[in-house]
């Protein structure tokens, strides 16, 4: 197991390394004069330009610029934001907790709603309930999360005059207020994932319920509830977890739109603001951090799979 973890860790390093080169390279081959773009004046003064180029180390060769940047990243120094003049690392750290909390809450919502629906659907295969639930899940999957959010903002306010407090309060300062601010975005973001989980769970359950060990469990007189939850579901979840890895990239992208919609100060809002102000050190750092989060999440999924399923050989 230890060797397996080590090998997977080592394999994810080149992925992040090449990703960092791509991010860095893209910003460098950007069409147009960096001076005009950053300063946002049509004809900037020569002196201003030279200062900026020096500040960005653009007067040095690209390779040395890259190693300067990546060397800084490895020691926790992501550079300085153009706009706020604060360290990029600090900005990212400050906004990270909101995004993580939003992601965790919506994943929790997705599992809590998607898995039971999938199980129920599988148990009632091809009955009316199954057909209806499958239709609903493909419908949920097709609704953009920000539209679900739009409606969750609009209609409770219109009908009952209810709207959750705007902004973001830290969980430790006021847990209830914090949850009230986050539950609507979490549901909007989690709905599509919930539908995907329901579909995965259903097909995995259908496969598992046909296995011999499930028949054995039933034959020895176990209650149906025990057969389903202990014997079938546990094994079905293994397959669900494997498929989950591919969803992470889409899911995490969704946080950007929902943070924007609900005015939550997370990484997505930070990315949005940095894109609007063309704050390239911040953009570079953020894209790399997003890539790192995905690589780490996928690593965690692979490892948890290896840990949960004793049949997987850790070599």
């Amino acid at each position, binding site marked *: 197991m230890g060797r397996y973890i080590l090998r997977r860790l080592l394999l994810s390093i080149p992925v992040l390394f090449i990703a960092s080169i791509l991010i860095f390279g*893209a910003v460098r081959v950007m069409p147009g004069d960096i001076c005009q773009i950053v300063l946002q004046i049509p004809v900037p003064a020569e002196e201003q330009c030279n200062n900026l180029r020096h500040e960005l180390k653009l007067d040095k060769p690209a390779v040395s610029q890259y190693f300067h940047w990546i060397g800084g990243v490895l020691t926790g120094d992501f550079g300085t934001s153009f706009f706020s003049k604060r360290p990029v690392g600090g900005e990212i750290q400050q906004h990270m907790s909101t995004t993580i909390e939003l992601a965790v809450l919506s994943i929790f919502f997705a599992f809590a709603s998607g898995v039971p629906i999938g199980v129920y659907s599988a148990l009632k295969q091809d009955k009316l309930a199954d057909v209806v639930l499958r239709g609903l899940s493909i419908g949920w999957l097709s609704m953009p999360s920000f*539209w679900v959010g739009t*409606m969750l903002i609009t209609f409770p306010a219109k009908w009952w005059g209810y709207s959750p407090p705007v902004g973001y309060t830290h969980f430790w300062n006021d847990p209830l207020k914090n949850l009230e601010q986050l539950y609507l975005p979490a549901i909007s973001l989690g709905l599509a994932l919930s539908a995907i989980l329901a*579909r995965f769970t259903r097909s995995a359950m259908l496969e598992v319920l046909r296995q011999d060990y499930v028949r054995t469990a039933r034959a020895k007189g176990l209650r149906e509830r025990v057969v389903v939850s202990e014997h079938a579901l546990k094994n079905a979840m293994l397959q669900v977890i494997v498929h989950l890895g591919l969803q992470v990239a889409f899911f995490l*992208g969704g946080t950007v739109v929902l943070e924007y919609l609900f005015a939550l100060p997370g990484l997505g809002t930070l990315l949005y603001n940095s*894109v609007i102000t063309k704050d390239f050190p911040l953009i570079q750092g953020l894209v790399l951090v997003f890539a790192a989060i995905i690589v780490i999440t996928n690593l965690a999924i692979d490892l948890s799979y290896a840990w949960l399923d004793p049949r997987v050989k850790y070599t």
Partner: protein
Amino acid sequence: MAIAADLEVVAQPGFGSTSWLGAVGKAARKNPAGAVAGVVCFLLVILAIAGPSLSPYSPNRIDFALLHAPTLSHPFGTDNLFRDLLSRIIFGARNSLGIGFAAIAVSIVLGVGLGLTSGYFGGAWDSLVGGFIDIMFAFPALVLVIFFVTVFGREFATISVAIGLILTPYTTRVVRTAVLGVRNLQYIEAATALGSGHLRIMTRHVLPNVAAPIIVVASVNIGLAILIEASVSFLGLGVSSDTNPSWGRMLQETRNVWQQAWWTAIIPGAAISVAVLAFNVFGDALRDALDPRLRGSR
């Protein structure tokens, strides 16, 4: 257009029917929801192409009543800038669906090129393509598109390429798997024995036999492409502007009046959902009809 292409493939020998009309009729009877979705997709494509002549008003005419609820003359109501919502939805289809289709074209060209060659040749090239796929999966879809348009500009082409790049690894993976399935079959060996070159074998013998999974993955990905485009334009980072509507942006433009005018909160989002739903259901139906082995893979 795309649907006509789909039907041609259904009509190819090997799909179990002599006439394509008969094959389509049979598939439609077996899966009525898929057939309805196919018709909706077709209508949406017509709407995007023929939009300007179907639209009742100009999308930018600003002399209607302010925030007027849906009526006969304005079936979708008017927005906070005195504009007719139905006309804007029709014109918006060009951006929303157009980018979706362009992105799919990019992902098919790249994905088929990479998947076909990596599955066929294997070896070092295969590992290289595999590495590329791993790296592409490391970027959150939306973040990559936002990064791409920030760096290369908010043009129709850049957004289409960015979304196409995101979908490429999925296409590549499906094509590669399908190619691996036919690569060692006897007719490929026969073609090699007859002295055909690699290029000829790949295009004449392998490609037609992996057409079904390619069509399926494309139709499933269109829904995803439309969703990503909608998200980008909702953030105001897409090609759309005040005078060039897209569904995502229309929802965002009316942000401050959602409560006063419920239709502005519902209609653009419903347009996105209907389009994505139609392509998802149609894609599922195509998958079941063309390649049952892929069932449940997405």
